[in-house]
């Protein structure tokens, strides 16, 4: 079976998910590269694997499945992506150093600024508009650029570099190599500029840590961290804003309910994250030793893909799993992963999504889709799922 599966429409899950959850919780699939991997689709299995250290990040091993059809296999297989800071104790140190910039308190302090940016974007929108291009994409990019201290004028280049990093099918190897080299050169030069003229931003803070040479972070790790944060802050939330609004407008009674009850914004954002039928490619792991999973055995050396979208629709974990329940509480969805590697920027993502939704409800309460929901198109080939465009009017 070829992976990923084709969905019936952009907002609906592939039919395979339900069948695999019911009958084949560990299923062999073929990637774009031709390599095979094992697919997990049940909530319980996906959650357990995401937190289990035997499911490692060692996708650079020669026997690991390549995910992309390029020579290096894409972002997950590239040796440049691996290193001490990506696993075990090294990861823990890195994570704790970074977490201070993404605490609930720190990101809540960013709310007024995010709101201001969102209002500015809505000011420039004229109906009919593509909500993805005019609002969903620029907002998180401005936010992550300000947090890192990177000028947003370079936005178009970031888009290209991050697309090259996250696309599994579109680019040739030489194009990928060029994009990777340019991105690295840009970021290394930018870090150097922060040293000469520090600002009130994360990269300036981290440059001081590197220069203290106390072993907490090396120059190479700093540049990789900056690239990682820029890409992560760029694609994920940006695509999610578009998908969230699309889901709420596809059945407009959802949008109308939020217009009259803003108290639901927090839980509606969580439910949109859970209900997203196109969250990402899946999270790949390399299995270091044989693991028993229910009645199945996963041999050492396997590459496993966890399907988070399927897990989030598992009726064994969520009542009315196939319905979008705007006031669902609690909502232990896996959109941000689980365990020690769960998303570092999740509090920021939540605040961005909540603020984006609140501003749109305030400013454009009559918002509606300008095309039938079934006519929306998915972005193809990306590690992170999204819509090509979201035509709206108001």
């Amino acid at each position: 079976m070829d992976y990923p599966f084709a969905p019936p429409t952009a907002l609906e899950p592939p039919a395979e998910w339900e069948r695999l959850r019911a009958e084949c919780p560990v299923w062999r699939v073929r990637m774009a590269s031709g390599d095979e991997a094992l697919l997990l689709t049940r909530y319980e299995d996906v959650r357990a694997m995401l937190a289990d250290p035997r499911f490692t990040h060692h996708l650079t091993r020669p026997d690991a499945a390549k995910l992309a059809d390029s020579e290096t296999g894409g972002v997950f297989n590239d040796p440049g992506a691996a290193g001490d800071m990506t696993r075990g104790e090294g990861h823990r140190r890195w994570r704790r150093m970074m977490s201070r910039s993404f605490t609930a308190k720190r990101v809540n302090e960013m709310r007024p600024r995010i709101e201001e940016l969102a209002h500015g974007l809505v000011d420039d929108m004229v109906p009919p508009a593509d909500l993805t291009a005019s609002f969903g994409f620029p907002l998180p990019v401005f936010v992550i650029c300000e947090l890192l201290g990177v000028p947003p004028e370079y936005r178009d280049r970031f888009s290209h570099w991050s697309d090259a990093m996250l696309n599994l099918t579109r680019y040739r190897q030489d194009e990928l190599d060029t994009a990777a080299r340019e991105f690295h050169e840009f970021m290394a030069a930018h870090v150097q500029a922060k040293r000469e003229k520090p600002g009130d931003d994360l990269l300036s803070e981290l440059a001081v840590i590197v220069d203290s040479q106390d072993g907490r972070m090396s120059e190479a790790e700093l540049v990789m961290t900056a690239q990682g944060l820029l890409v992560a802050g760029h694609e994920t939330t940006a695509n999610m804003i578009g998908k969230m609004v699309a889901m709420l407008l596809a059945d407009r009674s959802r949008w109308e309910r939020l217009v009259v009850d803003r108290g639901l914004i927090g839980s509606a954002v969580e439910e949109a994250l859970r209900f997203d039928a196109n969250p990402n490619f899946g999270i790949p792991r390399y299995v270091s030793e044989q693991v028993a999973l229910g009645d199945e055995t996963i041999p050492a050396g396997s590459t496993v893909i966890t399907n988070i979208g399927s897990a989030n629709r598992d009726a064994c974990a969520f009542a009315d799993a196939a319905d979008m329940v705007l006031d669902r509480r609690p909502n232990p969805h896996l959109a941000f992963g689980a365990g020690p590697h769960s998303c570092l920027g999740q509090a920021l993502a939540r605040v961005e999504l909540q603020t984006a939704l609140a501003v749109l409800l305030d400013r454009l309460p009559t918002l509606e889709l300008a095309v039938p929901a079934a006519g929306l198109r998915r972005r193809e080939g990306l590690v992170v799922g999204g819509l090509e465009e979201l035509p709206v009017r108001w």
Partner: protein
Amino acid sequence: MKIAVDQDKCCGAGQCAMLVPDVFDQREEDGVVVLLDPAPDDRLLPDVEGAAAVCPAEAIRVER
């Protein structure tokens, strides 16, 4: 209600501090959970149980 947190497991996601700020906070230097009140009023039970349920690191335990 009695609450216990596992600071070793905590991944600093900040959900608990976002949902029940009277009970949970995060250390400023590394985002690790700080339990402000290990035995809060029972009125907060649904919120605290909710925070425990959505903790991505399963680092919060609640005893009724």
